[in-house]
């Protein structure tokens, strides 16, 4: 029985960004695609996310422009094909789409390195969906907090997070590239996570 609804009502309603765009526009698009194979919704989603995916593909500049274009197409096609499994009540559209982009890029890296494996990145990435309503609200608050705090990170921490998440580099690769000790990379990541209030909850 959900008893926390009232308390959180103001936070579950869609919010309006300064641009006037509703932040849940993309969940609506995904839902329209999943339920009605809505091509107009897909086109809107493509125009917003494909350029982000291309930027993501080119981060760290290990992929060629051709590979990046292929990746954008592959990810957008997957978004279309998997949209039926998207549940707006359990997952955030941006995280859902980012996860597909991340896994597809990891698989592409492995294909380019001629990995021969029966496992895909999807197989080992688990589900980010929460089953309980309380956790869903809790996660939404966490996302809003991360968005609000992320611009306040000091440069050295923001730079490391970008290398870790957008360039997909391991902590030791980042250390090698920036020529700093591995321990410094780890501590900057941890400091950034503390500032964003990302932590284990016991």
């Amino acid at each position, binding site marked *: 029985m959900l008893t926390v609804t009232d308390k959180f009502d103001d936070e579950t309603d869609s919010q309006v960004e300064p641009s006037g765009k509703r932040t849940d526009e993309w969940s609506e698009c995904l839902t329209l695609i999943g339920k009605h194979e809505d091509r107009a919704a897909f086109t809107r989603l493509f125009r917003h996310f494909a350029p982000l995916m291309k930027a993501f593909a080119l981060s760290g500049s290990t992929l060629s422009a051709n590979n990046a274009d292929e990746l954008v197409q592959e990810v957008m096609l997957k978004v279309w094909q998997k949209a039926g499994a998207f549940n707006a009540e359990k997952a955030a559209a941006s995280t859902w789409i980012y996860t597909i982009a991340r896994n597809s890029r990891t698989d592409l890296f492995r294909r380019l390195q001629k990995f021969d494996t029966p496992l895909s990145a999807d197989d*080992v990435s688990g589900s980010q969906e929460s089953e309980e309503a309380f956790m869903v609200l809790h996660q939404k608050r966490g996302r809003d907090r991360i968005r609000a705090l992320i611009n306040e990170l000091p440069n050295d921490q923001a730079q490391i997070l970008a290398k870790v998440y957008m360039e*997909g580099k391991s902590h030791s690769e980042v250390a090698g590239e920036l020529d700093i000790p591995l321990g410094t990379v780890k501590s900057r990541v941890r400091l950034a996570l503390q500032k964003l209030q990302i932590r284990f909850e016991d």
Partner: protein
Amino acid sequence: MTNFHPDLDLITEYTAGSLPLTQSACVSLHISHCRRCQGIAGQLSDLGASLFEALEPAPVGDAQLNAVLARLDEEVPLSYARTSKDTSNTPAILQRLMRGDFSDLSWKNIGSTLRISYLQAGDPQHELAIYHFNAGGRIPEHTHRGSEMTLILQGGFSDAHGSYHKGDFLVRRQGDVHAPTALQSEDCICLVVLDAPLKFIDWKFRWMNPFLKLRTV
């Protein structure tokens, strides 16, 4: 409820997609059983998504959009219907790496208490294997030339540092020495990822050291 978890550095690399495949498999099996780690992995994925949304967009032309629109009627790959929920006692990841269940694997006996089955995960830098120790069996004292990641799939074991049960996740690093003993109550099955071979200290097993190689097929 498990008591031993991957640390924040590992879960960060896991959610960023930079962890080697076999290590990701091991972390993901732990997370699927651990609400605490699910919570943090969810927050870290949201962090990745926030960074993703804040990227400077790179131009994508209409030709690309049209190319994708033209492919929307393609048959959906069957693999997309795969569920992440475990339907049997064998976790889904392992089902993809094994034909049948644990009893159908081919095993290599190491002494009288331990047998090992190597899985073909296709990760060139790491060995992924299932270790089966008999109830109460002791693994000869050994040290690590690299890192060893262990996830307990069934039963449990103890060593000088503690006692570990199903779902627990452990990392031993270079130079750590231990001699695990399986719990008396049941056989223990673990998933183990190595990036360098073990090194036995126990004199009865030292002769094996020069022959220990990573099996990374």
